[in-house]
């Protein structure tokens, strides 16, 4: 199964995301921001980094890349899309996901190993986890504070669309400890923590992140 990873100018974790897909048993395919084509992939990862330097707002410029027009269109028809960190920001800026990511409450970039609780296992990217399972995955961001209007939050909670939540400390001030959410179909997931940095014992705090990439493989096969 082929999973595309988009590289924007300033993407950083694109190679890591491709490695994670490989470790999970998938076939990574590099996608380029300037090409509208998805090269026949079965799912897409928008990786972490600082697309266009994140100068204006994180993800604000990347949202308009040619590849995003296709991603937005295909996501609406069920293509599994995972946005990690900057990818999550791009998904929010694109309105594929509600809410927005703002400056961390403490105003610093923060990199730490973070405990998370998986709250929704019905998405394309989390079906391999157990409901309520706690995992440890790195976070690293300067603008990871999730915000949304109260009614939006209530709807997200009501529909079970909070996918992962910070457990044991909130690293950036996100409302209701939200670390990741999904769209109503569950094919589009965005999260601030970096599962691609938790796929090998040697280089990550755990291998707990692998489940995101193995989940989509089974989701696409079934």
């Amino acid at each position: 199964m082929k999973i595309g990873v988009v590289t924007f100018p300033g993407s950083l974790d694109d190679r890591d995301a491709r490695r994670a897909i490989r470790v999970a048993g998938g076939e990574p395919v590099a996608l380029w921001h300037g090409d509208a084509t998805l090269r026949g992939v079965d799912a897409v990862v928008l990786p972490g980094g600082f697309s266009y330097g994140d100068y204006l707002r994180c993800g604000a410029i990347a949202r308009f890349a040619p590849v995003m027009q296709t991603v937005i269109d295909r996501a609406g028809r069920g293509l599994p899309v995972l946005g990690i960190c900057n990818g999550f920001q791009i998904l929010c800026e694109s309105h594929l996901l509600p809410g927005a990511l703002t400056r961390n409450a403490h105003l610093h970039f923060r990199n730490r190993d973070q405990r998370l609780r998986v709250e929704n296992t019905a998405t394309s990217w989390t079906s391999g986890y157990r409901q309520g399972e706690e995992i440890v995955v790195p976070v690293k961001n300067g603008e990871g504070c999730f915000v949304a209007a109260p009614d939006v939050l209530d709807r997200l909670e009501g529909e079970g669309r909070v996918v992962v939540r910070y457990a044991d400390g909130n690293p950036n001030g996100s409302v209701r400890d939200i670390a990741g959410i999904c769209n109503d179909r569950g094919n589009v997931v965005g999260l601030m923590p970096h599962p691609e940095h938790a796929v090998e014992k040697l280089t990550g705090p755990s291998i707990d992140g692998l489940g995101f990439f193995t989940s989509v493989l089974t989701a696409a096969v079934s």
Partner: protein
Amino acid sequence: MPRVVVDVMLKPEILDPQGSAILGALPRLGFDGVRSVRQGKHFELEVDEPVDEARLRELADTLLANSVIEEFTLQVMPL
């Protein structure tokens, strides 16, 4: 060349940690009497004539501000 100024602020209901940090620092620096501080972005654009204000508003609305959390004001400066 005509100049266009766009100010983008977080909507009032959204927490502004930068503004709060500044407000918190003021008494320590000996500045009293400031009740609230909000921080936003200020853009200055130089544009060709004739100025198409509607189009510029669209630009501000889609790119310079994120309407989910921000609002903006736009002013075309007199030459």
